């Protein structure tokens, strides 16, 4: 790429790239036939403008029209017949109590499918496999006595928040989706939450564990079943209190809100205990190289190491710990519990603690579980390109199952009814959710994923083994989390 670009752009500039002005008589330092140049110059203009017009015409031909069909987006006509105790609908731009006509529920999602974060597109494969299975084998979803097929419109945002906004605008105004489903990324969901709030469109299961999804100003957004990041810290602190109550802790975290959710909660939680944070280091989440930081943390010889990191930084830090000869109890963010990342870390990942609320497809313990068997049978059938052992696919499958569960629990198919249902849901045994881990939210508790287990990676076996009993933190996330992480 750079070679190709640099050739025409570098100096000296090839003559064929020269600006027209370069050939003006008084500028041409070598030779110039001023008369012929003048005549040539006259001819050039219309060509340029013609090119501009052709491009414009092409663009317009490809875009559908439709200003006249659009509703005003700043009006407030919503919710006349939709008195709701849970959700204030007075400011809605469109009436959320209108029932869906036809026999299809159209959902929209935006997630990275190209670029650095394209690994997340496996989520989509898991989701699509589940929806196809429901549409083809179960006939669709039953809501209020009627059966609907599910259609999922997906758009690529390359993990860039402004493209997510663009995509979601299109999904709402052009595709006219009923609801948004599993939009990936904290910033990406933050960027669209005002929009979905105004339009009163359910944004179900924003796919990150950010505590910001507990902000009560945004009733139309509900987080996913990923364990909220602050709860991970609570689980680990409880673990340390049992195993080593006077442990010193070193922290490596991403230098962003994600890393802060870990470090700030941890600081809050060690208060009043004998646990002590001895050092905190940050790394740039877009570089993923943590060796220098880990080396300085290792010098503290702390008893425990908290890794508030994600993606490639996890295996990178684990290897750095091993190379430094440091042997702390390691806690790693639940976002890193993927087979791919652990394979990169290799033996350095052995014994690492984390949390999980899904059955690991690689764990033989679940091999005979009917829900796991269904997953392993249907994913290859409906999404042959997906890897069933990939936890990201399992996550997509499970959220899709949870959405279907939510829809079927709704008394009727309106945005308001579905959102209210989602906000009061209490279900068990959905998708690959752990048998004991129910998913529940209510008026005061906006967090799913509060029931989970600690897991320990076994490098020899190549999967995460459950460590200890199921932990139930139902309704606790809000009190554990520093308030500004929720309302900020």
């Amino acid at each position, binding site marked *: *790429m750079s070679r*190709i*670009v*640099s*050739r*025409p752009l*570098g*100096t000296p500039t*090839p*003559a*064929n*790239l020269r*600006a*027209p*002005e370069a*050939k*003006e008589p008084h*500028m041409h*330092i070598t030779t110039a036939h001023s008369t012929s*140049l*003048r*005549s*040539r110059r*006259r*001819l*050039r203009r219309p*060509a*340029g403008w*013609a090119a*501009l017009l052709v*491009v*414009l015409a*092409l663009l317009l031909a490809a*875009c*559908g029209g439709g200003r006249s*069909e*659009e509703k005003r987006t700043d009006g407030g006509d919503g919710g006349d017949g939709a008195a709701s105790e849970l959700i204030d609908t007075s400011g809605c731009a469109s009436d959320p109590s209108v029932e869906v006509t036809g026999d299809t529920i159209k959902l929209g999602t935006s997630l990275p499918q*190209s670029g650095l974060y*394209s690994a997340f597109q496996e989520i989509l494969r898991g989701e699509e496999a589940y929806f196809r299975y429901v549409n083809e084998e179960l006939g669709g979803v039953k809501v209020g006595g009627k059966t609907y097929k599910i259609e999922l419109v997906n*758009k*690529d945002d390359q*993990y*860039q928040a*402004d493209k997510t*906004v*663009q995509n979601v*605008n299109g999904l709402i105004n*052009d595709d006219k989706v009923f609801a948004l489903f599993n939009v990936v990324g*904290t*910033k990406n969901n*933050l*960027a669209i939450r005002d929009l979905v709030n105004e339009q009163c469109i359910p944004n179900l299961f924003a796919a990150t564990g950010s505590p*910001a999804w507990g902000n009560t100003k945004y009733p139309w957004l509900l987080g996913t079943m990923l364990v909220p990041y602050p709860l991970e810290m609570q689980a680990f602190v409880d673990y340390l209190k049992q195993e080593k109550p006077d442990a010193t802790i070193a922290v490596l975290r991403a*230098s*962003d*809100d994600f890393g802060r959710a870990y470090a700030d909660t941890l600081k809050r939680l060690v208060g009043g205990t004998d646990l002590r944070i001895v050092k905190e280091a940050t790394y740039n*989440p*877009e*570089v993923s190289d943590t060796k220098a930081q880990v080396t300085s943390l290792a010098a503290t010889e702390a008893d425990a190491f908290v890794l508030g990191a994600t993606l490639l930084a996890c295996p990178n830090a684990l290897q750095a710990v091993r190379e430094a000869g440091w042997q702390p109890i390691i806690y790693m963010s639940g976002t890193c519990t993927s087979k791919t990342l652990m394979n990169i870390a290799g033996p350095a990942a052995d014994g690492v603690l984390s949390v999980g609320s899904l059955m690991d497809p690689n764990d033989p313990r679940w091999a005979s579980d009917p829900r796991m068997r269904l997953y392993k049978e249907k994913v290859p059938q409906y999404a042959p390109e997906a890897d069933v052992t990939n936890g990201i696919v399992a996550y997509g499958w499970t959220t899709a199952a949870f959405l279907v569960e939510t829809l079927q629990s709704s008394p009727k198919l309106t945005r308001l009814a579905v959102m209210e249902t989602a906000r009061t849901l209490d279900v068990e045994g959905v998708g690959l959710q752990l048998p004991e881990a129910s998913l529940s939210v209510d008026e005061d508790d906006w967090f799913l994923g509060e029931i989970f287990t600690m897991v320990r990676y076994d490098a020899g076996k190549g999967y995460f083994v459950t460590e200890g009993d199921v932990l139930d933190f139902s309704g606790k996330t809000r009190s554990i989390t520093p308030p500004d992480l929720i309302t*900020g």
Partner: protein
Amino acid sequence: MPARPTPLRRAGPAVAALAVLAVLAWLPQYYGSTQTALFGRAIAFAVAALGLNLLTGYNGQVSIGHGAFFGFGAYTTAILMKDHDWPFLATLPVVAVAGLVVGAAVGFPALRVKGLYLALVTLGLAALFPDLVTRFVRGTGGTTLVQIPKVTAPGWATGFAPQDDQWRYYLVLAVAAVLALLAWNLVRGRFGRALIAVREHEAAAATVGIDLARVKVSAFAVSAAYAAVAGSLLVLVTGLANAGRVETFQLSIDFLVIIVIGGIGTVLGPIVGAWLFVFLEDWTKQVFPDTPLLSPALFGVALILFVYVLPDGLIGGARRVTRRLRRRPPPDGTRATPHPEVNPA
């Protein structure tokens, strides 16, 4: 001396520009808000590419760091609007001046390095910028995302812009039109001639009295100011400022692709290129929704094709075609499709 151009001839470009402007002004009347946002994005990209083209196309200095200037402008506008309640237009002069200053600061090292090395310096800028943002910006939910309050249409504008997104588009268009006119004047005047002279032959340029350092640093400054204002314009369209490493680097490359496709060293080139770029990106997404990698691949192929087949971009290509259609021999005796080796600089 050749005959002076007739008045009609001289008015030609102005009439064409007004016609294009009229079409652009009509767009949000017909098209919905999603497309209008897309058009707004194309215009913002065009402004950034105009700026990059002043530097790269006219002055011959390469920058892979314009995404950073773009992000700088975006954050300046967003923070002024969100934390200090400034109206959008009031932020633009600040952004432009700050862009000039930052651009000049980056331009000084450019006096010492050229070509590939300059490209690396600016690449470093693109790499550094997201770190600065992560360190100093605390936006929504503790992230680096800064969202602006909604810009709504004033009462007197409801006649032609009843919806807010239409009003925002017109603001973007108006600012861009002024900047395009400014660029057009700039490259036709003394400054433009100096830019080109420095690009073509520094020693010769210095001999005729051009202050090399001043021209090069000014080119950087003006170019950065354009990119910064373009960033502000995109904030108006999308309602947010955001800069990750990916975004900043990607934007820098996007702007380069745009000027190569449109035509380096022309004012119209970046405008055509930006529209084509934004349109192609969106079109491939809609027509081939299940092949997300198609769009980047397509641009890669297009770029290679352009470098080989249309090295002077769409505008240059179109000009050569019209010349051929009129069966005029190329004026300086070279082939209609010149190659560097037969027409050395």
